């Protein structure tokens, strides 16, 4: 059996909006479905919303028309406007690919939100999966910036 590859990464972003709006964007599946796919050729769809400690959300992502990856998100720690920590399991057509722990930490005020994301990953299929996870998330966080700008100043739900 292939050994498990472990690695971690950190991504940082700053958004010209309030911490509350970014927290809303991170906690809403409707919002995440808009910006969570890495590119315009890909999509992210949620089966359910269950944002609470102990909650489980199931989503599917991949190229549009072929959402071949299944993602399970288990929320483990949530403090509104401060942090969200969840585990995320990704599986493909041939079985489990990775398990990861993702921490989203926020700080700032009513006009600026600084976000730090730490990903800690165990890949069952080699190191490429870890790079893929990091690059996909990095693209999504850039999409989030555009989404926050396009969707006005109101609450995101």
């Amino acid at each position, binding site marked *: 059996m292939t050994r498990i590859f472990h690695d971690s990464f950190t991504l940082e972003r700053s958004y010209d909006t309030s911490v509350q709006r970014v927290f809303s964007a991170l906690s809403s599946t409707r919002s995440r479905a808009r910006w969570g796919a890495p590119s315009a050729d890909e999509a992210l769809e949620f089966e359910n919303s269950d944002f609470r400690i102990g909650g489980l959300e199931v989503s599917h992502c991949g190229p549009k028309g072929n959402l071949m990856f299944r993602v*399970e998100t288990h929320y483990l720690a949530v403090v509104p406007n401060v942090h969200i920590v969840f585990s995320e399991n990704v599986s493909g057509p041939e079985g489990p690919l990775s398990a990861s*722990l993702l921490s989203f930490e926020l700080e700032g005020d009513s006009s600026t939100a600084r976000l730090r994301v730490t990903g800690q*990953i*165990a890949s*069952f299929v080699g190191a490429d999966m870890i790079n893929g996870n990091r690059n996909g998330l990095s693209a999504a966080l850039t999409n989030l910036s555009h989404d926050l700008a396009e969707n006005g100043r109101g609450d995101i739900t």
Partner: protein
Amino acid sequence: MTSRSAIHGTFDLKRTYPSPRADVFGAFADPERKRQWAHGAPPGAHTLDFRVGGRETVQMPGPGGGTFRYEGVIHEIVENERIVYSYSFDMGGGVCGVTLTTVELADAENGGTHLKFTEQGAYLDGFDGPKFWESGTSSLLNRLGEHLAD
């Protein structure tokens, strides 16, 4: 970041036990065995539903007088080879740490088992994280060794 920021850390611990892999795997999979060696929890204070997606919980009086809570979920199981789970722990004042754990088993000489235990953690709210947890987990794996020898 503020005082509520998280500290992230990773450690791995290795042990070699004289017991066969199926026995070491069973110590993680069997609720009654896991309760005894891993948690030292009284009967009724621990639950384990050992399957992918299954949960593990501990709720018992903590060392500081509050309630200690452990909430885990199992992500991946390959019988006698691999177990992956995440869990959160709460010493009585809210969740103070969350970790992703992988357990890998391989054959050792003379029918024994190599165990590699990797923990990637996010330690919250100033909780004295990785070093404390690594030390505690090292003791835990020693307890597993004693349990296997019984």
